[in-house]
């Protein structure tokens, strides 16, 4: 991301107009239902504004129901916005939907593979829907099957696939036509850590080697942290923070410091003395006792940490261990919403009342 901005700034400097951002969104609103005045309207997206540069890896991070899928569906022409403007590659998404569809690839939150078709047939069908010539489709499909490690299972109906295999196949079907812009709605939900890592690695490669702009949504802090060059944190249909993961964390301005004390007879007394000592240090906040010692948030990194150590030493409190950790996106989320972002591993309720497709991995 820094490279892209650096270049565009440079180009502005020498009078070359900066390129149109790949995605530009202004005052976007989506209200579900309630049009008939029957009440119960849901303001799923509540006036958001952001842009994504060409070549950027951008992410939406937010808990269940924060409006991630709704936004992605509006950007992929699947859903009409209630109001606001949104453009992709300079095209108005509502008016020039047909042009926008040629540019984008999309992998939805629910796995949209056809279980009756084989993996190979699924991918080929998508290739033909994009009007690619037959030989191009064939070559590209084989390439993708190889990349996604599905070659062996390629001739089996997809309803015999495991959840992870179906996820990967679905991912592949968003990539058949070499999209310039790839939308991924929670691409790793339901995957085991190993497969998740493989998918991450693959997405990095697509981003790097095919120079694809990627817009991803996720509920996982780690995923956003690992992949996204820049991200927006969503909550209740609004963007509550935006920036590089690094800047967002730096804005928290404090480290989490954990002081562990020896678990001997004097532990309880030592802990309450430690509590008193660190509380008086400027820059230390949120001191909390726990079963092995105390934790706190410390501003200004190293200096405060040193101060903590010195004060504990001069108060002659025996210290077992001191650990400092950098701020995490969890803390960023907490700071901006006042709530912890809990990700239950339980999947969101499915849209299906009944369906005969196997749906593991959702």
């Amino acid at each position, binding site marked *: 991301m820094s490279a892209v901005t650096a270049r565009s700034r440079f180009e502005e400097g020498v009078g070359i107009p900066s390129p149109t951002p790949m995605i530009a969104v202004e005052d976007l609103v989506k209200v579900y239902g309630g049009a008939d005045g029957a009440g119960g309207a849901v303001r799923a997206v509540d006036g958001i504004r952001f842009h994504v540069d060409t070549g950027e890896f951008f992410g939406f991070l937010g808990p269940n129901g924060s409006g991630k899928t709704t936004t992605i569906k509006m950007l992929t022409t699947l859903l009409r916005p209630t109001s606001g403007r949104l453009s992709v590659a300079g095209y108005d998404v509502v008016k020039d939907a047909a042009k926008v569809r040629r540019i984008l690839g999309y992998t939805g939150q629910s796995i949209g593979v056809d279980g009756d078709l084989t993996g190979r047939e699924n991918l080929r069908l998508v290739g033909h829907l994009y009007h690619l*010539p037959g030989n191009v489709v064939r070559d590209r499909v084989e390439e993708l099957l190889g990349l996604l490690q599905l070659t062996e299972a390629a001739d089996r109906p997809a309803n015999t696939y495991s959840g992870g295999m179906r996820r990967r196949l679905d991912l592949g079907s968003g990539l058949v*036509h*070499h999209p310039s812009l790839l939308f991924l709605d929670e691409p790793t939900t339901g995957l085991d850590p190993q497969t998740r890592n493989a998918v991450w690695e693959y997405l990095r490669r697509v981003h790097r080697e095919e120079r694809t702009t990627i817009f991803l949504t996720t509920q996982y802090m780690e995923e956003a942290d690992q992949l996204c060059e820049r991200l927006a944190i969503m909550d209740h249909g609004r963007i509550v923070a935006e920036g590089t993961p690094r800047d967002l964390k730096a804005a928290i301005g404090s480290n989490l410091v954990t002081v562990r004390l020896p678990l001997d007879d004097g532990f309880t007394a030592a802990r309450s003395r430690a509590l008193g000592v660190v509380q008086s240090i400027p820059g230390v906040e949120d001191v909390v006792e726990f079963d092995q010692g105390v934790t706190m948030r410390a501003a200004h990194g190293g200096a405060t940490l040193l101060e903590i150590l010195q004060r504990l030493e001069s108060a002659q409190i025996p210290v077992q261990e001191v650990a400092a950790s950098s701020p995490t996106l969890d803390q960023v989320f907490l700071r901006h919403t006042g709530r912890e972002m809990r990700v239950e591993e339980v999947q969101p309720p499915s849209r299906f009342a009944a369906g005969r497709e196997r749906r593991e991995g959702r």
Partner: protein
Amino acid sequence: MTAAESIHQRSPAVLPGVDVLGYAGGRLSEVLWVAYRSLRKLSRNPFLLFFTLMMPIIWLGMFSQTFGTVFERAASSSGQAPLGYDYIAVLLPGIAVMSAIQSAAQSGFSMVSDIETGFMDKFLVAPISRSSVLVGKTLADGIRMAAQTGIVLAIAFLFTLLFGWRIPFASGLAGDAMIVLLTASFGVAFAGLSNSVALFTKNTESTMAVSFTLTFPLLFLSTAMLPAALLPSWLQTFSKFNPVSYVASAARSLILTGFNWTEIGQAFLAVAIIGVLLYSLAVLAFRRQGR
């Protein structure tokens, strides 16, 4: 615009296919791929395939037993010369229409299932026309209906040869082909209803309810099961407004007496009218998605 142009250059493979084929060719290939996928699905479900194809035969046997004696008694009590054919000859074209209606009523199910599984989104994000999806799916159904009719006609013909069933097949093979075309195009046209309901409600049960509620009255308040002369007079009047009657009568004449171009013309007109109406509705329903 510079960004947009550079994007098109970077995905060169996307456009030539359309340019080479031309607009109409592009649309045609979309329709055929959608249809191909539906037929592939069907071929992966051998039980479903077997029963859809054999269903008309079962009905033919069943209805010929229940209505057969009624028909023969009615025909003989009318005091005319004995008929040169069995009731099954009267019933056969009706069964062909009936199976087409039945398949048409179920046509929307695959639409709902695609919406539910998220597969529909694959179609919707692709640069293809919305109507290609609709037409491709119902084309596949039409092919299935044609196969159903073809098979039931072939088996009836076989029984005529082997077991002495009295079915005239007055218009020969060309007439049979015409019956296949008539019933399949009627089925495709009528499938517009099931698909409209499917797209408006996105719900299998509603689609089933609406389709079946309409299917049986349409069928039995028509000349599909019995010729007009044997229906009560109020039903005769009603059946004149029922498009099913025109298709059934044209098909019946093809079996019993030969080509009657007036009837065939009326039947295709009826098909065209309901086709235009129901597909306008279905396209409207399709466009409403995502609002």
